[in-house]
């Protein structure tokens, strides 16, 4: 069954937003840009509607590079088949901040306010990430309640997991009235949405909770974490 979580609050991280705007570690915005970010932050909170959808599913088997879930749904990723080895379940999820913010960004763009639009868009990206983090925390609590732990969060299009596998996730959740939809090109609408999977396993079963990158040979991987 697909569960929905709505009406919760998230906190946008200004540093993360600055990172999206291209500021690296030892740089920060000057005072006029910084106050613009603060102003738009207030606007962003008015515009976002964070919501999460998730579904718990049993893992039926792992045959590298495939992970077989309930109903024969198959995930193809060598890294995930390693990460999920000792898990018995996964949570498939979709999280979004809704359409309000991106509609406002489009309106600002149309008015030629490209600076404001870009700042608000970056705030939306930050909010989208925090919404996914919120779900991760909730799942971690849920798992802890019955002696389980969760893996990190993985999304199609990152790591060695092809973006077209978005279709598998949407198929897994197709019984529910989601507010997120998938285009033919595997783009989610609203745009500020994140989809993915989190593994769940018994706490005493050596669950891989760290990043797999240390053991990976894909040197120039853009998703390295």
């Amino acid at each position: 069954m697909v569960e929905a979580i709505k009406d919760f609050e998230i906190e946008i991280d200004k540093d993360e937003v600055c990172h999206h705007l291209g500021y690296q570690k030892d740089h920060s915005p000057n005072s006029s840009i910084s106050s613009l970010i603060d102003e738009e932050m207030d606007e962003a909170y008015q515009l976002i509607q964070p919501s999460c959808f998730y579904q718990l599913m049993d893992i039926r088997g792992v045959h590298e590079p495939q992970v077989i879930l309930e109903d024969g749904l198959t995930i193809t990723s060598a890294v995930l088949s390693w990460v999920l080895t000792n898990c018995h379940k996964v949570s498939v999820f979709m999280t979004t901040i809704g359409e309000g913010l991106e509609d406002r960004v489009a309106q600002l763009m149309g008015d030629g306010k490209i600076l404001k639009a870009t700042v608000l868009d970056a705030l939306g990206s930050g909010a989208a990430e925090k919404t996914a983090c919120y779900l991760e925390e909730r799942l971690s609590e849920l798992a802890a309640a019955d002696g389980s732990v969760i893996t990190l969060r993985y999304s199609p299009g990152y790591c060695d997991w092809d973006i077209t596998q978005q279709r598998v996730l949407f198929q897994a959740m197709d019984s529910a009235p989601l507010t997120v939809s998938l285009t033919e090109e595997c783009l989610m609408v609203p745009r500020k949405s994140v989809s993915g999977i989190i593994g769940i396993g018994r706490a005493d079963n050596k669950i891989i909770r760290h990043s797999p990158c240390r053991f990976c040979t894909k040197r120039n991987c853009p998703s390295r974490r």
Partner: protein
Amino acid sequence: MTDDIIEQIKQNVIQGRMDKEDEGFDGGMVGQPGVKELVQQALDMGTDPRRMVTEGLTEAMSIVGERFEAKDYFIPDMLASAETVGEAMDILAPHLAKSGMATKGKVIMATVKGDLHDIGKNIVSIILKGAGYEVNDMGADVTPERIVAIVTEEKPDFIGLSALLTTTMMAMKETIESLAEAGLRDKVKVIIGGAPTSAEFAAEIGADGYGADAFQAVRVVEELKQRS
């Protein structure tokens, strides 16, 4: 006097100051005239609008570009500067039309079929405008057919294609193939950009250039112009 006000326009573009309310990147400039007021003032003084563009606006944006590459300026700074140039161009447009000023070239910008991301493409568009190019932005989800049609009609010098996902970047290849089929491939230079693309991918699909950010887009366009 004239040189003076053009220099002031330039400095205020660099400070991203639209009007007198703005403090400027270095701060403390509230109350002094910004680009909007200065351009109007210069026009009233009879300053040549073409000089305002080339010696004021375009030169300022090239300094902004240098500061961006030196990591002294960041995306928001360059956008604030570019917005002041956009405003100045709006004020100057009717005067420039009268004086018959030519642009450096015409660029069509588009996010390819199936892709809806347009922030990156919009940033590239505004920076190319600031650099003195005429830019026609076709928006997002633009099919190869529409690109072929606009190239036939408007005969641009460049097309800039943007894509953000590996699934949609293949539409860039399709677009280039469609241009070839229509016999237009050698009539226009195609440059590409967006997160999953690269110089290698550009070469692979037969594009003429790749840019990782907006100022690189300007650089690639200028290089291609010199070569042709």
